[in-house]
Each structure stands twice: as C-alpha cells, then as structure tokens.
C-alpha cells in the first residue's frame, strides 16, 4: 500500500528534529504536529504518543529517538512531506540527538517559557550548529502561570541573534500557535540536497530490532533511491542484504515502494545481529556501490560500568539472553561475562551514564522478569604498572596488587553547570568538594551563569546530579564531556562483611577520602543489611589497614504473634511471603545481603 505520492518533489521535503533540554515539551509538541497534520486521528491520540516504550510512558521521559513522517498542506496550496525526529533530552542520550541531527536540515529548539535556557538547550544547540542545521527557536509552555516568555525570548535572542519578536511562542499543551510552527518549518528549513542520480547513499541513524523483520535500520537517503527489491550493501561491514521491506514511520511502520533522495524511512534488513548493521554506517547498492561512505558518527563510549548478576544463579542464561535482546535495540549497551567471588556468575555492563544504567536495570526486571543485583557503578581506570605496561580496568576488583602499580589514572570530565546566579556559591562548594577544578565562567544571559569545571567522572556518577538539583532547588542543569585521563592518589576501599572481603562492594577512592567514605559506607551497610542470626561485623579497609568498623547485632526476636486455629492459613501466607523476601537476598558466606546494599555507595550523602 502506498499512502504518499511515490515521487515527492524533493523541494517539498523537510527533515527536522525537535531538540531541547529534558522535559521542555518536545514529545508534546510532536503530538500537536502529528495532530495538526492529521497523521494521527483523534482516536489514536495519547499523550506523548511517540514515547511508545512502557518505561518511557511511565517515566514521562523519552529514551529513544523516534522518526515519523507527516503530510502537510501549506498555505501556498502545496503538499509537503515533513520528516520529524523526536529526540531524548537526558544528557545520557546526547549521542542519540547528534545522530538524529545528521539526518536533518533543521531543528526546532524548544525552550520552556518558565525554565528558560538550560544546559542541554545549549549542548543541543551547539551540536545543531555544528551539524549546520537551520534552527527555529520555539518558546513553549506559554500557558504556564510562571511563564516569562519575554525574558526567555531575550535570552534566546542573545544566544542566536534572532530578534525576540520573531521567536515563536507556543503552548504544546493547548495547541496554541502550532500552525505557525508548521509554517516556519516549511518556510525556513531548506529542502534536502543530494544527487538523485548518484549511487545510493543512505545513512543509518538509528535502529531497532523486530522479531519478524530483524534489525530495522532508520535511514536518511542522501543520494540515489531505494526500491524494495534492491540488493543492498553496508559499506563498513560489507554485509549484503535483500531488504525484507522498506517503508516510513507513520508513526507505525508502513511499507512503501520507494525511498528517494532526501527522504527519511526504514529498511527492515532481516539481519539478526546489530553488529552487521551498525548505526552510523552507510547503505549503498550492491550493484552500484558509492565510492565514499557518508561521514559516520563517533560511537558513544560507555562511561559507567557495573556488574549485573542474577539473584538466582539459575537465571544466568536468561540474563544473558535478555542483555543480548536489549543490545539489539540499544547498541550503546555493552557487556561481557564476569565472575565475582561474592556474586558468582554475571556480566560487566557498560552504560552511557547512570540514567541509562537505571533504565537497563528496570527493563531487565520488568520486561524480562529477572531478579538481578547490580553492583555500584565504576568508571574505567588506566593503571600504569611498574613494568611499564598499561592496563584498563572497569571494576575495582580487577585492580592489580598495589606493589605492582606505578600510577592509577582516572577519567576527568569537562562539565558545564548552568544555574541562576544566586546558586553560584553552593555550586562552587559542591563541585570543589568533589575534587572539581574551576575553569571559568560565562554569563550567556544576565541572571544565569555557566560555570565550567573539570572533575573526575567517578565523582560525577555518585549522586552528583541529585545533589546539584537539590541544592539549587532544581534550577541548575548540567552537561559534560570526556576530557582526559589523569593520575591521582587512588586506593581501593575494601569492604569486609563477617571478616570476608566482598569484592562486589569494593570501590576505588581518593586516598584523602578513604576514611570518610569508608565510615559512611560502613554505617550505610549497617542500616541496609538486615540483622542475622549471629552478630555480623562490617569493616572498611585500605590494604590491610581497617579504617572503619561497625557491628550488626544478632537478631533476637522476630514476630512472636499469637497463633490460634483461625490464623493458620493467614500465618502460612505471611511466612511464604517472608520466605520469598529472604530468597531475593544474596547469601554471601552466611550473611544475607539485600540488593540495596550493593548500591550503598550511591546513597552516601555528603554530610
């Protein structure tokens, strides 16, 4: 079935993404555009309709970019084909935004009228400028009582040079001024370039896995065209494929008989592994390959690593299958088998950030019904050995014997914190308290300051974002990029439970912080590990020196409720429930340790 004119005039195609800081209303704006263009009927409409994953809907957050094609009749009487890509706003998924941009000629930069410009507004704007996109700033949520559109317009104008009165002011919620957005898209974003007669070059900017259709590549055609029967070739992997189907997102997958130069759509490849069909690769025709691939993307590197273990060892295979399936939709997830003395067999997983980690963890639990234990996240260290060799480790347990170590280096990040000026002091204090180094400041708008720092990533992943948010009443926002590896005086902080070191609880910390962190960790664990039948000592040590200890008293009494005839069934059920709760804990030696304990490091507040 063909729903769109098969040979759309390229002059009437517009490709654009919607970018913004988290929660500024991208997905809601997408809803209104889908509605205004009649792409989605009133009946099918739900809030943030493009957020189709359960987890996205529940959290109200876009995790994965999605593309959709719309048909729009402009006031010049012509029908235009608009390809929209809604992007996630969370900093962990910045790379998704940058990929989406390479498939577009323009971007709607949405700014919340009550929040104004925030860190990812800037980060995404810079990416868009780098990708040479036409930027249409849009002030959203003007219906909010706290909206201050004039000030926000002035901020944007300072940044982009657009005269304030030309900046669109809309409410994606009420639909106010949505028509103006569509008009601006047609009038201001240039149509795609490219050579329809040149050999096919289509950029894979995203993918997902479909049980029937294999890897579905999201593509933007730069040159040439694709027909369903074409034999295709991936330029990097040289893999050949006969598409199962080609089509567009409307927003569900809808087969078409052609994708032409400038268009956005999908190719269902039938391939069973993402390795063969990588995001960033260029697809060409096997019979008439293009001489040069399109410039690809730099692949996102995992920043945060953690062990993921099944609570019940028998679930190991299931966990492996689940990770493999998740990876099919999310190439940024990496994992390899790992063993722990405490937790037995599991996987070392690499994530883009803590939010990404949390999402994978939740998906494993909910979509795959697995009971898992996740260890505290770690960064990847470079260890220079005395023999001159450099090893990389992403788990504290892998740290070589201190006697062999010349130097330990850790990743440092450039961070930008964007905050109202009144929080200048608290932000400074927070960052420098975490080994951060002040680099400079800018005042992009009068009441706001952007503070630039450098800071070890290991400090950033432990609760930093929450601390920043709470100290600035939610007003500060944060962006960061990798800077370099730097040596420092780092040591491994071991935790001993009942005199046994538990490798999954070890962390690498700065020597100056070892005492404070050891103490905090020990008291947190004391809180989190339930009392056992015997007293359990908990100790923190560096090398062989114990630096902190606490004792979990033996359990003396559990419920001594009365129990007569009537209660038998109820009592039984209660016991069954308690037994289940016990099973969810991990027995290490004789001690039963609940999942939360392995993440205790994350829950240490800097008191």
């Amino acid at each position, binding site marked *: 079935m063909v729903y769109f004119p098969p040979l759309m005039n390229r002059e009437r195609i517009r490709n654009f993404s919607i970018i913004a800081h988290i929660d500024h209303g991208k997905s809601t704006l997408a809803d209104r555009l889908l509605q205004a263009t009649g792409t989605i009927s009133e009946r099918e409409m739900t809030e943030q309709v493009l957020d189709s994953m359960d987890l996205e809907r529940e959290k109200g957050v876009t995790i994965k970019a999605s593309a959709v094609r719309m048909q729009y009749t402009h006031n010049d009487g012509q029908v235009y084909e608009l390809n929209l890509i809604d992007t996630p706003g969370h900093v962990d998924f910045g790379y998704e935004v940058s990929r989406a941009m390479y498939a577009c000629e323009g971007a709607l930069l949405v700014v919340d009228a009550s929040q104004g410009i925030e860190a990812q507004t800037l980060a995404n704007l810079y990416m868009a400028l780098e990708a040479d996109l036409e930027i249409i700033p849009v002030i959203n949520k003007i219906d909010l009582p706290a909206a201050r559109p004039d000030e926000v317009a002035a901020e944007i104008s300072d940044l982009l040079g657009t005269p304030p009165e030309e900046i669109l002011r809309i409410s994606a919620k009420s639909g106010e001024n949505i028509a103006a957005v569509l008009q601006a898209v047609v009038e201001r974003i240039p149509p795609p370039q490219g050579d329809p007669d040149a050999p096919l070059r289509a950029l894979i900017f995203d993918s997902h896995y479909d049980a029937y259709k294999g890897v579905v590549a999201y593509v933007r055609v730069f040159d040439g065209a694709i027909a369903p029967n074409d034999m295709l070739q991936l330029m990097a992997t040289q893999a050949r494929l006969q598409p199962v189907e080609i089509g567009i997102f409307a927003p569900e997958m809808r087969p078409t008989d052609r994708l032409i130069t400038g268009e956005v759509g999908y190719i269902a490849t039938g391939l069973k592994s993402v390795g063969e069909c990588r995001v960033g690769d260029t697809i060409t025709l096997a019979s008439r390959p293009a001489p040069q691939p399109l410039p690809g993307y730099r692949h996102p590197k995992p920043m945060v690593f953690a062990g993921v273990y099944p609570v019940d060892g028998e679930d190991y295979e299931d966990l492996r299958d689940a990770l493999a399936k998740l990876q099919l939709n999310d190439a940024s997830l990496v994992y390899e088998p790992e063993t722990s003395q405490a937790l037995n067999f599991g996987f070392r997983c690499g994530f883009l950030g803590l939010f990404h980690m949390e999402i994978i963890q939740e998906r494993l639990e909910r979509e795959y019904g697995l009971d898992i234990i996740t260890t505290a996240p770690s960064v990847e260290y470079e260890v220079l050995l005395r023999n001159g060799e450099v090893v990389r480790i992403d788990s504290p347990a892998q740290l070589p014997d201190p006697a062999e170590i010349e130097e330990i280096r850790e990743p440092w990040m450039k961070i930008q914190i964007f905050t109202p000026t009144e929080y200048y002091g608290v932000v400074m204090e927070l960052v420098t308290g975490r080994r951060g180094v002040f680099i400079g400041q800018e005042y992009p708008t009068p009441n706001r300051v952007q503070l630039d720092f450098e800071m070890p990533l290991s400090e950033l992943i432990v609760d930093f974002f929450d601390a920043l948010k709470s100290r600035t009443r939610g007003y500060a926002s944060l962006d960061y990029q990798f800077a370099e590896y730097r040596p420092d005086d780092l040591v491994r902080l071991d935790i001993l439970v009942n005199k046994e070191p538990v490798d999954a609880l070890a962390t690498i910390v700065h020597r100056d912080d070892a005492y404070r962190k050891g103490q905090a960790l020990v008291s947190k664990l004391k809180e989190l590990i339930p009392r056992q039948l015997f007293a359990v000592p908990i100790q923190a040590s560096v090398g062989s020196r114990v630096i902190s200890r606490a004792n979990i008293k033996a359990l003396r009494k*559990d419920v001594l409720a009365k129990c007569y005839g*009537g209660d038998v069934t109820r009592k*039984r059920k209660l016991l069954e429930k308690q037994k289940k709760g016990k099973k969810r804990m991990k027995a290490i030696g004789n001690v039963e340790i609940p999942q939360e304990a392995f993440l205790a490091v994350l829950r240490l507040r800097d008191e």
Partner: protein
Amino acid sequence: MDTSYSLYLHIPFCRHRCAYCDFNTYAGLEALIPAYAQALCREMAFLRQAAGERPPIHTLFLGGGTPSLLPITALETILQAAHTHFSWHAPLEITLEANPGTLDRDYLRAAYAVGVNRLSLGMQSAQPEELRFLERQHDFGDVIQAVEWARRAGFENLSLDLIYGLPEQSLARWEQSLSRALDLQPEHISLYALTLEHGTPLSHWVDRGLVPLPDADRAAEMYELACERLDKAGFEQYEISNWARPGHACRHNLQYWRNLPYLGLGAGAHGFAAGYRTVAVRASTAYIERLQNAGAPSVFPRTPATAEAIPVDRATEMSETLIMGLRLTQEGVSLQRFEQRFGQRLEEHYSAPIRRLRRAGLLEWHAEALRLTPRGRLLGNRVFMEFV
C-alpha cells in the same frame, strides 16, 4: 464418629475497637446480638445435620470479639444448643473470653451456672496510660473486681492476657504489670507481643510518625524476663505465648497447636475438619442473613455460612503440623505421632531444614520430639519459614 473435635464459637461484637486490633469484630452493632445468637444456634443445627449425628466435642470456646457482651439468656441458649447438637465428652472445657470492663458479679455467677468453667480475661496491662494508649475500655481495677467475682462465682480456671512490647514501654513498667497479674493468682497466663497489624489505628499512628515503632530487642528482653518470673512463680510454659499452672494448659488451644480437628462457627470463624479448612462469611449481617435464608442441608464440614472450604493436601498438612506444633515449647512435635499420622519419618522428610535450624541453635531434639530451643522461641518465624 471417632474423632473428637474442639468447638469454636465466634462472637464478633465489641463496645469499642482497641487501637491494635484487627480481629473480625464490630463496634456499635450490639443491637444485632439476639439475631446473631439465633443464627449461631441454627448453624449448629445445620452442622449436626450435615454430620448425620452429633459430632463429639471435648472443648468449647466462646471467642471474639467480646463474648461477654452476650446477655446471659443468649449465652444460655447458645450453650443449650451446643448441648443439643454435639455430644459432649466429659470433662468438657468451656471457655468464655471476657473484657473486664463488661462484667459484673451476677453475670459471672450466671455464666458459671450455665456451664462456663474457664474464663479468659483481657487484662493487657496494669498501667493506666498503657490501657489508654491501647484504647482498652477498662482499667486495672476492673480486672481485680472481675477476678474476685469470678472466684466467688466458682471459677477455678482463670486466664489473664497481657500485651508487652509497647512503644517506649520500659522493662520496669512491664515487670510491674506482670507482678500485678501474678498477684491475682490466675491458673493461666497468655503474653502477646504487640504487633502492628495493617489497617489498625496503631499502625496508622506509626506510619505517620506519631508513635515510635516498638523496639524488638526490648520486647525480647521483656519476654525473657517474663519467662523467668513466671517460672519462679510456678508456671509452666507450654507454648510460645502461653503459661499455665500444672494441669491448666488450655485444652482447646492445644487442639489447634497439635493440628487436630476443630469446628468453627460464627461470622468469620475458621474450622479444620474432614480434610478441609473452612471459613465462614465475615460480616455479621451477612452471616445472620445466610442462616435466616438457609434451607438446603450442606455437606460436612460445611454449613450455610461457609464462604470457603479449602481441601488441605498432605504436604500442607505436614507443614502446618510443624508450624503449629513447634509452638508447643515443651512437647514440640512428637516423632511417633508424626509418623503415625503421615506414615513418614519427620527427621527424614524435613532433614535439610532440621539440620540447618539445629546448627543455628534454633531447634533441638528432646524426648523423641522436635522442639524450639529457648532462643528459637524468640525467632519462631525464622524456624517456621523453613517448613512452608
């Protein structure tokens, strides 16, 4: 019928609901009592009809709720009906649960006269502020009076219930309550650790931070203190929460703990007979209606009030025999009786959990029976959990 049953009759009325109570009982519905008593008599008749003969019983327990809210005439009618529909095996133990605030001299005299021979008094505490906190509607003076009248009326088997482990309760305050209770020279004492039951006012207070959580370690100390005091006073502990002077263990409750059959009648009452656990409709109004409208006979052990009858399979029965039997701190679960009942050896069937729990010092073998160690008595749930 060769099995002898215990008979439980539930009286779901109270003047006021105590702050910690989640029993099936209703405050302010006393007007229903006459109709309820009638319904109870009808249910007994139905049960007898279903059994085809008068089921033999050796204990009868009027529990609640507050059975002492039954007017004496109602109490008499009920006991008469019980006599008509069941065959009584002497010596019959007939217990009445009573709230000390509801009693008077004449009532106790009359109750004794119609056959009640064991009285279980909800004393709970001797401390006025604790009784207020628990929203009990009586004071310790009422208890002293009630005991006195009961003795005069002829009761020779008196039990007192006490609660310990209240928020911020000190050991000294507890010991005082205990001493006051012993001063009254009861034949039997039950001590219950206060537990937070979901949906009770007390658990709301705790959730909202108005009341601190009871301290489990302190409760354990109170328990141990009580064990010592009661032992010295000549009481034998025979169950986790129950003590008696020699020969005064509650026979009715022993039936439960030995996992032997009992018939439960009245709203929300539970029974265990002929391989079924039965539960009656909970609401007293629904209960009354069912018996008013009942016509067709039922199949034993069901009655028209039965809401559920769940067959108990062998594995469940075994595990329940342990969960209940291990509560008996002296006799425990007898190897011989277990094997007679199930044709399987206890120590073989449950060898793994028994080994684990003995190693942990929570279970012991004693006189051909498996029982809790003194430490295990405080950690009963840990033990029972291994057998579900």
